[in-house]
């Protein structure tokens, strides 16, 4: 603070805590320029490789921040705490997978603008990172929009593909409506508290709620939750998922199903947990005090979770297209992931993150294999998997592991993730939610095992030629299989890591503004 008056107050912030985001920003900008300067004939995969390097550098920066005290700059517009670090690590890993997948399978005939494809993935990632790493409604919303706008283009990037165009249009329309609904909800909160800073909102909202505005707080919550349910593709905003998943190029579908969904969870947890932390509901007759977030909203979130599980799992039964099936499966998984939030316990963050990790690797693995198979077969239908075991036994076995993980069968990460989530809903005596979760899981066996049936019990009419696995997909699959099995057999290691290195409670702690040393 040596009198740097000419730089103003902005000069005093420690911008280094923003290193992961800045890395992505710099890479996205540079790649867009490189793409323009490269001759037309050059293979654009070089941009993909550079982008992957950027993602990995950013991941290293992010992981170097684990276990640090919460810090914030720009009046909480940017905030770094364990919650942010954990979610950003998930986004970065997911995007790294999407890059590997694109490098291995993206077809120049299909996606003409390959340069744009790679750096738009980066900008979408940047948006997601801001959604996890801010404590101000405005910045959070801008992150949300950056992610949405980039993904709108990515979905429609197969310019000559009619389904891609259609799905991009649907995505834009539904996305805009839900963004508007979210914003409308936020405006109520701003109107009630006069601030967009989440900690100030938390400070003021308790009194406001007591002061007769409880219905408006509820209204704001519902509007925001419904709007944000678009990002996690939960009921009631799930309708876009099948069409968009089907139309988008497979790596983008993978990105939407994992990174975009995780970002949705990040923003939902961040906003509601901080915002509603001080809101206490007092029963007028008994005088009993209840936390709005922990005790009262669980029912509504639980209903959304249950509806997502039921609709996702039953609709998936009838699908013949693999991507559509995975879309419905993703809706159901969003339902599972909402259960910890609906049954609020101290385990909330660890449960959500464990399940997200399991979901990330299983889903990425499935989409990587799907990209290979549909490239080989020329279509995305489930029957394309017929006889995969004879054609590529290792692919079929990896696929089986991923599907088992999503179905929640031991000893995969998905099983323990589900069991872990399950414990809290049982402990809170939320038996109906636990029951629906288990019942719909059994329903999901039908379609997950339907894919396995194709792979192991049928033969492919197009012959038994081998499928060639590009090295980058090979790397992605090995990592995904290893993590899925490791986290399934030794879940304790993963939980301990999360428990010891991430103090999620510090999300509630108002950070001191970091000033340059």
């Amino acid at each position, binding site marked *: 603070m040596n009198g740097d008056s000419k730089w103003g107050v902005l000069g005093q912030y420690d911008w280094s805590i923003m290193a992961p985001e800045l890395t992505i920003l710099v890479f996205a900008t540079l790649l867009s320029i490189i793409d323009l300067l490269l001759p037309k004939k050059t293979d654009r995969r070089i941009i993909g490789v550079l982008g992957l390097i950027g993602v990995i550098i950013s991941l290293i920066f992010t992981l170097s921040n684990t276990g640090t005290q919460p810090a914030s700059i720009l009046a909480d517009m940017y905030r770094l705490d364990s919650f942010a670090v954990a979610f950003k690590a998930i986004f970065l890993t997911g995007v790294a997978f999407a890059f590997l997948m694109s490098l291995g399978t993206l077809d120049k005939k299909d996606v003409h603008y390959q340069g744009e494809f790679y750096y738009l993935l980066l900008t979408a990632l940047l948006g997601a990172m801001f959604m996890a790493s801010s404590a101000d409604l405005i910045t959070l919303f801008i992150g949300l929009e950056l992610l949405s706008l980039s993904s709108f283009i990515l979905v429609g990037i197969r310019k000559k593909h009619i389904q891609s165009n259609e799905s991009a249009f649907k995505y834009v329309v539904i996305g805009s409506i839900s963004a508007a609904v979210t914003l409308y909800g936020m405006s109520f909160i701003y109107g009630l508290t006069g601030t967009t800073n989440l900690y100030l909102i938390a400070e003021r909202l308790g009194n406001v709620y007591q002061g007769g505005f409880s219905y408006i707080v509820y209204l704001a919550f519902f509007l925001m939750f419904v709007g944000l349910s678009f990002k996690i593709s939960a009921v009631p905003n799930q309708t876009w998922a099948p069409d968009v998943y089907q139309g988008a190029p497979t790596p983008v579908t993978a990105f939407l199903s994992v990174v975009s969904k995780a970002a949705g969870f990040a923003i939902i947890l961040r906003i509601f947990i901080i915002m509603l932390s001080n809101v206490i509901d007092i029963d007028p007759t008994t005088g009993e005090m209840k936390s709005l977030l922990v005790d009262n909203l669980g029912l509504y979130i639980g209903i959304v979770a249950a509806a997502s599980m039921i609709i996702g799992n039953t609709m998936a039964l009838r699908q013949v297209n693999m991507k559509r099936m995975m879309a419905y499966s993703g809706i159901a998984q969003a339902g599972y992931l909402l259960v910890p939030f609906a049954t609020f316990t*101290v*385990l909330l963050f660890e449960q959500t993150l464990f399940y997200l990790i399991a979901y990330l690797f299983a889903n990425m693995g499935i989409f990587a294999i799907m990209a290979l198979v549909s490239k080989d077969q020329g279509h995305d239908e489930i029957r394309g998997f017929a006889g995969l075991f004879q054609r590529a036994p290792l692919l079929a076995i990896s696929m089986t592991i991923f599907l*088992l993980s999503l179905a929640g*069968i*031991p*000893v995969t990460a998905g*099983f*323990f993730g589900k*069991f*872990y989530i*399950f*414990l809290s809903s*049982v*402990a809170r005596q939320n*038996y109906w939610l*636990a*029951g629906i979760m*288990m*019942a719909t*899981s*059994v329903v999901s*066996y*039908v379609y997950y*095992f339907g894919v*396995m*049936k194709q792979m*192991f*019990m049928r033969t492919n009419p197009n012959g038994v030629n081998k499928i060639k696995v590009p090295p980058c997909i090979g790397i992605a699959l090995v990592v995904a299989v290893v993590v899925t099995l490791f986290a399934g057999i*030794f*879940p*304790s290691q993963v*939980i*301990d890591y999360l*428990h010891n290195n991430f103090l999620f409670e510090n999300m509630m702690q108002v950070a001191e503004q970091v000033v340059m040393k």
Partner: protein
Amino acid sequence: MTSVLAVLTFVPLLGVLFLLLMPKSQQNMIRTIGILTTIIPLGLALMLYAGFDSASGDMQFVQQLKWITIPVGQMAMAINFEFGIDGLSMPLVVLTSVVVAMASLVGMKIKDRLKEFYALLLVMEMGMLGVFTSLNLFQFFVFFEFTIIPMFFFMGIWGYVNREKAALKFLIYNGVGSAILLIVFAVIFVNIWTLNFKEITMAFTDPNSPFNIPNTMGYLSENFRLGLFIALLLAFAIKIPIAPFHTWMLAAYKESNAAAIMISSGVLIKIGGYGLIRMNAAFFPEWMDKLGTAIAILGVINILYGAVLALAQNELKLMLAYSSVSHMGIVLLGLAAMNAEGFQGAIFQMVSHGLIAALLFYIIELINERTGTTDIRELGGLAKSMPVLSGVLLTVTMAAIGLPGTSGFVSEFMSYLGLFNAHPIIAAVGALGIILTAVYLLRSILGATFGPIRETHESLIDARSYELVPMVVILGLVIIIGVYPALLSGPMQETLINIVPRIGG
């Protein structure tokens, strides 16, 4: 010696590893590895039987390892990896290893995808052994799933026309069962904070435990226990199966291959009975006692329903499937008796039926392979062309009917003896089943082996030497148990004394 159970459980995986390294073309080598690997657990199981201390009712060969801890605030929920067997699980471990070793011989006939056949068989064996040697609910569940998933593939890959449908049906029914189990296990875990069988039994039954003292913090009400009891009963009812949850079994037995049926009828459905004793009876003895009549009635319904429908079948495999329903009813009768005789009868019946059903299905599949049909109307006079095979079939049928001198007699006798002490009227009704069993079994088996023979069936090959092995081994065991039941009842005596007094019988 302490890790003998872990070795026993995981040794099949070693075989899987070897199999994966084998080239596909080396069919004979694959068969040899597959069959030899099933011999090792069999040897180990017999070694355990020899080393088992019959004077103790506690868990033996116990081994405990830390596995998972879930930090909850300042505390932690622990899930261990623990093995052990007592007089209840020991006979079932031996049964499993015998049945799997015999089922592995079915592989002699399989030419298509042999490697996968043995790999799945061995994974399943690990699952089954793990179920019986686990000392906690979580581990039990994990291994339980390891029996279901490989079985799905096993049924779906090798079998008859509608095998995929049958496999899916098997998966869904058992999936529902395991889902219910998981709910119960989670409820127990979050309330008692342990998953260990012994600790849960203590928590539920020890009058001094905080869960049993009304008006204290941790008190678990009677209705709560009843809920858990019913849920467990439901889950195991699907497994055993109790009518009307038996439909998965019909499809499965009709459409799948011999090894799958042998394992399913020989071992998998016994997990249901094992669970009923290990969990329902041990955790909730007072409800087991109060609901004894209901369980006995369920058992009688099973016996009569299965028997009557078996009588109406022309398809040998379906007849045997219904006869399985009927025979598993006897297990329920034994449990409902709530006394030492009844429990002993139930366990005897589980082992005895496991052996007999496995062998019956094996022989029926041999006939099917030679004649291309299992329809009684198209068979007949097989004793002329295949005297040895038909002879064994008749003998094992006699054991199924419960002829004295076979294991079937001992188990039925004890079950009914136990039930006559507790519920004489129900037992009398149930005893009708014994007569019906004789009628339907003799009708169909005699119909297949005697009478006029078809021309096409006149020159069938009799049992080959390797086909004789399962017949000799299983028939031998059936007769040895029948003649000298103490071989089986000796080790379980003390264990049952541990469980029964709590029931108050």
